[in-house]
């Protein structure tokens, strides 16, 4: 009896998936329980097992193609069976364009040397033979390179500038900015999800922002001590997560959700930590941070972050957060205001640790401070609530010894 293989829902926000790789060819035998196909959801790459045994009679959506949740992607049946009737069912698959590969890259505009020369319109790109060869060696698309030579000729130094910038990040070949032009890139599932959710959040949750400055010298000392005396290599994020968890226990109102007719307050802290990937943002969740030790948080965070970047997170690993922390300190940002991740009630944005003159015991000394900004959904959190949370957060972080209790 022939059966349809449909696009499964692999995340709570997934609306459509992209076929990454078929592990069986048409005509090959399939056994129930074997992995049949790899699918890209909006969050991660997932494997789908076959629910039936038989012959993979027809692949309806090929690699790179998309299908909505529930859409027909393949048919499994007996060898001689007529499966034509099954092929009409399910949503029509859409031909993708290798969505994984053609992504909107996080592009950086390179500052190019010499006078801007207008690109030659039409015809072959002008490039010196050497530049052409270098482009070939490095798989650079010459038509997207700015030529600084006479009459727009692309020359060696144009390639050199490009290639030295390239090594700073894993950039796909389309990541070459040409001044004065624009390019349209397909939206990956992740980008679509982020767009939808963030727009929703801002539109529905009335945001307000409270910032506090924290003396980080105690945390620095604490971290140094632990890293010297134990085998652990604590990061500041590890300490901030534990401090946040402790503060959240004291202020469950900040650890909640607006449910329309009710508001929920959690007595556990599943903290999502925002991780930047090439294609977008994902938030792996550390569960029950209020109960976890430093070493557990350290190990888990490491592991989750790695797997987040290589898109190997399971759905339960990026769902269920009660609160999110986002850090842009590694970019030198001192303050920013994040957008609340629905259905959460608040999100904490931390900046960089700045060395600056501070006043201690009436004297100006060199200190280290960090600013933290809490973005809150005013439907369930008021200004004073937010402020008190931050006060406690600051006190805990400035007294890290309290965290070992």
């Amino acid at each position: 009896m022939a059966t349809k293989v449909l696009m499964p829902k692999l995340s709570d926000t997934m609306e459509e998936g992209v076929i990454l790789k078929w592990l069986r060819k048409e005509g090959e035998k399939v056994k129930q329980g074997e992995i049949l196909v790899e699918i890209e959801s909006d969050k991660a790459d997932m494997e789908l097992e076959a629910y039936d045994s038989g012959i993979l009679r027809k692949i309806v959506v090929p690699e790179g193609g998309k299908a909505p949740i529930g859409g027909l992607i393949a048919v499994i049946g007996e060898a001689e069976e007529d499966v034509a009737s099954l092929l009409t069912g399910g949503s029509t698959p859409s031909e993708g364009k290798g969505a994984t590969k053609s992504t909107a890259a996080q592009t950086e505009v390179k500052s190019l040397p010499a006078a801007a020369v207008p690109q030659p319109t039409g015809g072959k790109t002008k490039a010196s033979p050497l530049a052409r060869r270098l482009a070939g060696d490095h798989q650079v698309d010459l038509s997207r390179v700015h030529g600084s030579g006479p009459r727009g000729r692309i020359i060696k130094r144009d390639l050199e500038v490009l290639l030295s910038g390239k090594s700073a990040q894993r950039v796909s070949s389309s990541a070459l900015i040409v001044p004065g032009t624009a390019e349209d890139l397909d939206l990956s599932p992740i980008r679509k999800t982020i767009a939808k959710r963030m727009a929703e959040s801002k539109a529905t949750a009335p945001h307000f922002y409270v910032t506090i400055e924290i003396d980080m010298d105690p945390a620095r000392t604490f971290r140094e001590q632990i890293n010297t005396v134990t085998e652990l290599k604590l990061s500041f994020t590890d300490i901030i997560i534990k401090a946040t968890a402790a503060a959240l226990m004291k202020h469950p109102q900040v650890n909640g959700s607006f449910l329309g007719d009710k508001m929920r307050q959690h007595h556990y802290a599943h903290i999502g930590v925002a991780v930047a990937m090439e294609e977008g943002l994902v938030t792996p969740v550390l569960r029950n941070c209020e109960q976890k030790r430093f070493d557990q948080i350290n190990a888990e965070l490491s592991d989750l972050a790695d797997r987040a970047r290589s898109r190997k997170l399971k759905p339960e690993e990026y769902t269920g957060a009660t609160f999110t922390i986002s850090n842009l300190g590694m970019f030198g940002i001192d303050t920013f205001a994040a957008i609340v991740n629905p259905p959460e009630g608040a999100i904490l944005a931390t900046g960089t640790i700045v060395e600056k003159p501070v006043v201690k015991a009436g004297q100006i000394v060199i200190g280290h401070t960090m600013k933290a900004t809490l973005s809150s959904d005013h439907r369930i959190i008021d200004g004073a609530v937010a402020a008190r949370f931050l006060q406690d957060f600051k006190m805990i972080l400035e007294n890290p010894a309290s965290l070992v209790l």
Partner: protein
Amino acid sequence: MAIVSLREAINQAIDEEMARDERVFLMGEEVASYQGAYKVSQGLLQKWGPMRILDTPIAEAGFAGLGVGAAMVGLRPIVEFMTWNFSLVAYDQIVNNAAKMLSMSGGNFHVPIVFRGPGGAAHGLGATHSQALESIYAHIPGLKVVMPSTCKDAKGLLKTSIRDDNPIVFIESEVMYGDKGEIPDGEYTIPLGVGEVKKTGSDVTIVSWSKILAYVVWKAVDALQEELNISIEVIDPRTIKPMDYDLIVESVKKTNRLVIVEEGWPFAGVGAQISHEVSSRAFDYLDAPVERVTQEDVPLPYAHELEVRSLPSVDKIRAAVKKVLYRD
């Protein structure tokens, strides 16, 4: 190592080869009792006598052809042109007889002859006494063309040329005859067809030879390396034909940029030939088109400023180097 002048280096080469092989003799205008129009053959008549050092009448076609005939039956003449300008009178003998005899006779007769003398501009000699003619000789199959830029190269290359069994056009420069240089002690020769990297560098290759290399290019190299903060590689092919293309190509593969500096006129000059060969063999290594600095495409005038403007100069080399570096 000894320090000698260029004329001494050439004199030694002739003298040594005449001692080594009794078939070698020298003839030309004023080479014997006048001791050489530029004193290159000074002392040779006294040593070798009038049968081996011969003053000729002013008859270039006559004595060039006589040299060919003598070479065909086994002697090894060195024929001096007082300057290479006058060789044009003998062009028929050099091209139609010397160059072609081996081929035309189906291998019956070869012509081991060296035509030598100074070429190129001196100062204010006017159009017919200042010509750099290497390209019209290099153009002819059957001839070899040699042009040294140092005393060491001159002596070594001339000795090899005299021993070579083919007709050879050996072009010197009268303004350089007094310049001193180091030469190795004892017997040495330098092979034909082998160029030399006279200075290594990494940013641009300059190919040049003879007087222009000695007098203009080195000045330009010093100035430009300082001004532009670059490192220039200088190649002296030493033999114009057969040309050591491999050496030049190897250099261009490294620097990606080539400037050729020559005294001759641009149309169908030696630089045009090198440029073609390099673009053909090293196409994928060129970041800019090959640039040439040549004499202006005009007969050389007498007036000093005009003469200077017509010939290759440091300024012209600067412009060419900047152009290939895209720094103009």
